[in-house]
């Protein structure tokens, strides 16, 4: 156990260092255009982390992380237009989706609906939100001085500003630091959660809900908290996304968006935190490359890549690479210490 803990800290330190190097290094490597592109990749990586956490560790199959993502984006836009200062708007963009997730989660988990129906309910809620926000054109749908704008969405959303100084907005170069800083914070938070007693129980419930109950844990409560945390993180991702384009529209709630998040996690690897991050960045990079050419339809290629992954690397990239590295570099002690799925791995 001491060894596992030590290697846990080592991998955590390595990940943190890598994150900080990228955060401060990339601005020297990329021009502003490249950096902006990386910023949206990072926003989506935060979103992928929310899905990777609730699905890969909590065992909750949500088809609706885009609901919280979209809510986060809209909440930020409406709040910052009304408040002027972005600080409270960011807090609301996390709190409101989290509260919505808590409400939805309460009905799902305490209503004892089956796991499959959790997928159906979250999907349905996303479709409903998409339709609701699509039909918000016109003056009537104006919150304070923020018109929701129907299917056209909300343009010219004010950017983040230095906390307490609405007259000092972040420029696109500075937004990168905010986005990457958020990703690192979310990663650190989730590592901490997974290493805690709470996180161990969350993983145990994923492994065997009956056993967890028979040991005295109420799975409903743990799932509710997991789902709520995931909702808040998805909301933060939505806030970053809105900042990136100064724009939010109902497409944030689209099924394509929901599917994409799941693909990020599947490709990167379920049951890891690093996997969803890398999956999000890699897939988006690929989509951008494909978008630059005109010959083949982009969705088709993404679809083919997904099918290829599901067939050839069903575990996702990160678990496979990790196993190979472990075999190469870690001598298995006598008694055979097998890989520990529950350790809060990168």
């Amino acid at each position, binding site marked *: 156990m001491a060894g596992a803990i030590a290697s846990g800290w080592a991998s955590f330190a390595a990940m943190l260092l890598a994150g900080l190097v990228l955060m401060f290094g990339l601005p020297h490597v990329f021009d502003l255009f490249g950096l902006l592109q990386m910023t949206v990749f990072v926003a989506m990586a935060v979103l992928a982390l929310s899905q990777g956490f609730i699905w890969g560790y909590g065992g909750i199959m949500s088809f609706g992380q885009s609901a919280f993502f979209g809510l986060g984006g809209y909440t930020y836009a409406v709040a910052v237009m009304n408040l002027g200062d972005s600080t409270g708007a960011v807090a609301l963009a996390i709190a409101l989706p989290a509260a919505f997730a808590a409400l939805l989660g309460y009905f799902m988990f305490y209503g004892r609906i089956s796991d499959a129906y959790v997928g159906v309910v979250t999907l349905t809620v996303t479709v409903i939100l998409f339709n609701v926000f699509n039909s918000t054109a016109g003056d009537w749908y104006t919150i304070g001085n923020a018109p929701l704008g129907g299917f056209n969405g909300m343009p010219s959303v004010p950017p983040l500003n230095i906390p307490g100084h609405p007259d000092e907005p972040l420029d696109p170069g500075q937004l990168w630091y905010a986005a990457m800083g958020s990703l690192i914070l979310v990663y650190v938070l989730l590592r901490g959660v997974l290493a805690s007693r709470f996180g161990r129980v969350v993983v145990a419930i994923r492994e065997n809900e009956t*056993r967890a109950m028979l040991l005295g844990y109420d799975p409903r409560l743990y799932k509710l908290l997991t789902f709520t945390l995931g909702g808040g993180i998805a909301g933060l991702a939505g806030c970053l996304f809105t900042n990136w384009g100064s724009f939010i529209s109902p497409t944030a709630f689209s099924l394509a968006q929901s599917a994409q998040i799941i693909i990020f996690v599947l490709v990167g690897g379920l049951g890891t935190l690093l996997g969803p991050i890398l999956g999000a960045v890699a897939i988006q990079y690929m989509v951008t490359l494909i978008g630059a050419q005109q010959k083949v339809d982009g969705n088709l290629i993404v679809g083919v890549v997904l099918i290829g992954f599901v067939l050839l690397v069903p575990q996702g990239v990160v678990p496979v690479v990790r196993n190979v590295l472990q075999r190469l570099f870690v001598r298995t002690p006598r008694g055979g210490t097998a890989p520990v799925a529950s350790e809060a791995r990168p």
Partner: protein
Amino acid sequence: MNADAVPLLEARGMTMRFGGVTAVNNVDFVLGEVELRCLIGPNGAGKSTFFKMLTGQLTPTAGTVRFRGEDITGAYPHQVARRGVGIKTQVPNVFDGLTVRENVFVAAARLHQARTARRIADETIEHVGLTRIAGRMVGQLAHGQRQWVEIAAVLAQEPDLLLLDEPAAGMNKEEVARTSELIREINKTKALIVVEHDMQFIRMIAKTVTVFNQGSILIEDDVHTVLSNQSVRDVYLGRQAA
């Protein structure tokens, strides 16, 4: 046990119907503090169903369960567990994707902070004799070892009553002997109800035996009386008769 003391467990009129099948039929069952009871009976007699009703996994069609005098009928499994009832189920319920140590840790962590829970987990693992495989994934272990992991988890949960549903199933002779020894030791401080088909095993541990047949209690008496009873022999005919 003091005659007018509140029993540890008192089940009255317990009945469980599945559609047309009556799996348990009007069973009265009383267990004292730190008592060891063996529950036997042929396949389909209703033993596991009875355990499920006691632990909240099934809500009885009729009847009440009292634990130390408090009504726990229809409570959720986690609520029953918190009162101090632990169960090793017939089909092992363990965390396959976690190590032995993590399985037992999660059990101990319900009542204790992480540091204390880790210590209790290590002690329990040592006690049950799993130290050598503490770092192994439970999903990769043999059936007998998985049973012990489950027993260790139930012990780490620190219950006052342990229900063990066929703890010796799939174990070799040596393992069966070790399990019976473990049960006797647990019984120094805790009450147990043990369901088993292995009569050798029953002889090793039993004092009082309750026999289920077709959902009802056939006989309840001390082990020698029960095992020499003719109707018990009849019920078990074709099996390894007593």
